């Protein structure tokens, strides 16, 4: 609650509403003239005696405004209450009982939702007379499908919850379960929508009064504007102030509904977090290409969250020779995908690179955490996708759903080779489709028309479009079934050897790495805890975490042993960290592990381990 009030928009609008409510309740006791008394002289402009002036009959406008608040709030509360109650009852019955009841009811909601509120209200008031009670009922009668639809979907999700099922199997009756367990838990969005409904009701009543169809005996803001309209030139204050009051009250209601909606919907909140990115730095153009295709030194990347900053990549260093392959392994959340994103410099808005150097084929692309600019252009832009590309995980999301595969590939091709022309682009794509084994006629398909395996192949084709020297494959097969997985990994491996490209394969599966990579980097809590040639890591794993990962692999003889190998939750790197990050889950952990940061120990040829107990090679 306190967190909700901390949002300025919510706090402000709540304040306005409390004030309006107080004014409305206190109206009879406030030292104001009778709102209907024609006591003062007419058309008096705002001044000391009448703060907001008087109208054509000499009535005090401030007093009428205050009494108008009562009417506005009454209309808002009564009509949205009736509307919400109707909606809650019909919506929850429809959602709870489902079947043909739901079929008919939800069709009815849709139909009634299409009837324009104002015109029905107009008709009802024209036929029945302009009593305020008709107005309120009419507003409720046309707005209830809103709440009904919300309630229905709430009930649909809530009714399968465990506690509901438990209550039912314990013998509780349907009405009891619905009233006690389901409806109360589904009310939040109804309340949110209720505030917006209240605003709508106030505006509808005001509009009606403005047309002269309001309650003749009531003091309504809409009616005040209706009367003020005729005296607009002579006494503009007659219409200015009631309109302002309407605007402020309705805006407060809408802002409250909006703010509550955002506060209740964490997904909308997360978008707003942004990390500050570092400015690019200029570097001269390098002379010759050096030996390693990629050199990474002390790379650091952080995510800014509401409560903390997470150091997802926390000082990672490695080098990859041209044509080499490196597997990066770890549990989800260890920072492996973040590292891939940091290398490509494509990150979520709340992520930022905070340190480290990256050199691609002798060309610096990141310097002390700053993107490098060479000859006025960001270095990463000159190599990304033409020399360094990536295969994203879950191709269904990584491809644009409303464009055909061919359109996307052609545009990506022409972006970097605008002079080539469409025919050349199509030829190249056809060639790639042959390589990855998709019939050329499928080029014109939309992503959703392809199977998961085919989509992943399209993603691979996209990454190979410009014959890159290094491909970063981020879980390229996770979403696929095992057979297709093997097939695609085999293809990637084969392509790599044939085209002589270097590969960084990011995966959680040690088995995949064993088949595809020459070297392995094991990541834990943002750090590389072990880096070694693939044969060596399976023969002599140096880090207890690596040992656990290998132990969790399925073997030919025995069943999978994931849980037995590694209990506990992954470490989240935030704040200052003393000791070894793996210590809480480590079976070998001693006092030193909890107190001192472990050293990086070289245990053999190209083999380093981040552990107090690793034995250095002599």
């Amino acid at each position: 609650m306190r967190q909700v009030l901390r949002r300025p928009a919510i706090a402000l609008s709540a304040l306005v509403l409390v004030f309006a409510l107080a004014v409305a309740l206190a109206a009879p006791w406030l030292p104001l003239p009778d709102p209907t008394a024609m006591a003062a002289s007419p058309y008096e402009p705002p001044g000391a005696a009448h703060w907001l002036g008087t109208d054509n009959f000499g009535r005090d406008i401030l007093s009428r405004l205050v009494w108008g608040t009562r009417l506005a709030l009454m209309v808002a509360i009564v009509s949205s209450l009736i509307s919400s109650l109707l909606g809650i009852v019909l919506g929850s019955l429809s959602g709870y009982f489902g079947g043909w009841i739901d079929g008919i009811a939800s069709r009815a909601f849709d139909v009634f939702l299409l009837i324009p509120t104002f015109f029905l209200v107009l008709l009802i008031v024209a036929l029945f007379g302009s009593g305020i009670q008709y107005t309120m009922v009419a507003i409720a009668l046309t707005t209830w499908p809103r709440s009904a639809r919300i309630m229905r979907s709430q009930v649909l999700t809530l009714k399968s919850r465990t506690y509901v099922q438990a209550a039912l199997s314990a013998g509780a009756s349907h009405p009891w379960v619905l009233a006690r367990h389901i409806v109360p838990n589904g009310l939040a969005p109804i309340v949110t929508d209720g505030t917006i409904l209240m605003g709508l009701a106030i505006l509808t009543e005001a509009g009606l009064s403005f047309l002269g169809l309001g309650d003749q005996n009531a003091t309504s803001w809409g009616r005040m504007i209706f009367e003020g309209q005729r005296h607009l030139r002579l006494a503009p204050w007659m219409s200015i102030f009631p309109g302002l009051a309407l605007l402020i009250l309705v805006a407060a209601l809408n802002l409250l509904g909006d703010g509550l909606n955002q506060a209740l919907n964490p997904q909308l909140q997360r978008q707003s977090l942004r990390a500050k990115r570092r400015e690019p730095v200029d570097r001269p153009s390098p002379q010759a290409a050096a030996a390693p295709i990629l050199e990474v030194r002390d790379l650091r990347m952080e995510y800014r969250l509401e409560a903390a900053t997470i150091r997802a990549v926390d000082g990672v260093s490695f080098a990859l020779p041209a044509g080499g392959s490196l597997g990066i392994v770890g549990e989800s959340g260890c920072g492996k995908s973040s590292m891939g994103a940091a290398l490509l410099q494509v990150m979520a808005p709340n992520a930022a690179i905070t340190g480290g150097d990256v050199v691609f084929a002798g060309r610096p692309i990141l310097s002390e955490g700053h993107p490098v600019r060479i000859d006025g252009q960001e270095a990463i832009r000159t190599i990304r996708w033409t020399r360094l590309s990536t295969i994203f995980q879950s191709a269904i999301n990584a491809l644009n759903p409303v464009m055909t595969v061919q359109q996307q590939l052609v545009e990506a091709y022409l972006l970097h080779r605008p002079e080539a022309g469409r025919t050349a682009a199509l030829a190249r794509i056809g060639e790639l489709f042959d390589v990855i084994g998709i019939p050329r006629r499928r080029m014109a398909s939309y992503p959703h028309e392809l199977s998961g395996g085919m989509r992943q192949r399209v993603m691979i084709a996209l990454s190979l479009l410009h014959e890159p020297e290094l491909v970063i494959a981020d879980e390229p097969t996770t979403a696929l079934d095992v057979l297709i997985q093997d097939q695609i990994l085999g293809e990637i491996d084969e392509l790599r050897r044939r085209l002589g490209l270097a590969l960084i394969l990011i995966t959680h599966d040690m088995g995949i790495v064993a088949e595809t990579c020459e070297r392995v980097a094991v990541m834990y809590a943002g750090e590389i805890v072990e880096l070694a040639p693939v044969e060596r890591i399976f023969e002599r794993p140096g880090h207890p975490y690596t040992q656990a990962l290998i132990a969790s692999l399925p073997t030919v003889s025995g069943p999978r042993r994931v849980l037995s190998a590694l209990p506990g939750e992954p470490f989240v790197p935030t704040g200052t960290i003393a000791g070894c990050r793996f210590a809480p889950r480590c079976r070998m952990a001693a006092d030193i592990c909890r107190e001192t940061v472990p050293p990086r120990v070289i245990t053999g040829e190209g083999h380093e381990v981040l552990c107090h107990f690793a034995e250095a090679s002599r």
Partner: protein
Amino acid sequence: MRLRRYVLLRVLQFVPVTLVVIVLNFLLIHLAPGDISLLLAGENADPAYLALVREKFGLDKPFLEQLWRYLVQVASGDLGLSFRSRQPVLGEILEKVPATLLLVGTSLLLSVAIGTWVGTWIARRPGSTLDSAVSFGAVALFSVPVFWFGLMLILLFTVEIPILPAMGMTSLDGPRSGIGYVLDIARHMVLPVAALMTVSVGQYVRLARTSVADVLGEHFITTVRAIGFPERTVLQHYALRNALLPVVTVLGLQLGLVLTGAVLTETVFSWPGLGRMIYEAILARDTPVIMGAFIVMSLTVALASLVTDLVYAALDPRVAL
């Protein structure tokens, strides 16, 4: 073939809406206090006309037969006679449609264009001060009572700084043909269109903002950014294209509110359209016209929803046809 089936199915869904609207209309007249024939013929109707109306609606027949008669009447386009002019209501309504269409169409087009542009602009930096300010302004905009805003515009641009006309669609002594006529109407349109836009422009700003921000968070945007498309292309070519789909959908749902706004706006500016006609009918208690307007407005909204659904289906390849 499947497309044709979808269109047919969706068009058939139009029928229950029509039925509900007509039946609702019928029930309301019967529930209303007072003599139905007086409601339909007007309080000052002469006995001969009253008898004619009684005969036409079968008011001495059983309830269900009356309902059936009414359904058949409305279905054949007979919305009764206005008791002021004794002219068919449908004809009177159709006569006013062009003026309202001009007002509503222009303001909707401008709202969508401006709203989408502003929304897309602020979507690039969700959570920034600019975003908060514009979002706040957007909410304030659709909280403005449109009729009051119209009056304020008149106060400002006709009374204080007299540069724009505030009444009607044409000047009394203005040209009646050619480019001068068009310009005259355009000048008269400025204020009402601006007033009517408050109903929808804020909604489109917010909608475009949320929609574009959502799309910008999707993986395929990361892909096109990684491929190296300039940010401008990412925003305008990829994000906006995908984000426009929800904007299209809401266009249909919004129409009810916009038509409401049109009635109020036309009243303020004496615009010779449907809204003005409804207002005058209310003043004269001309029930057949109000009923006819209700039917026509409801069916227009339902039709708009139908059209947007079909457009959506045509635009989004994911809608399985």
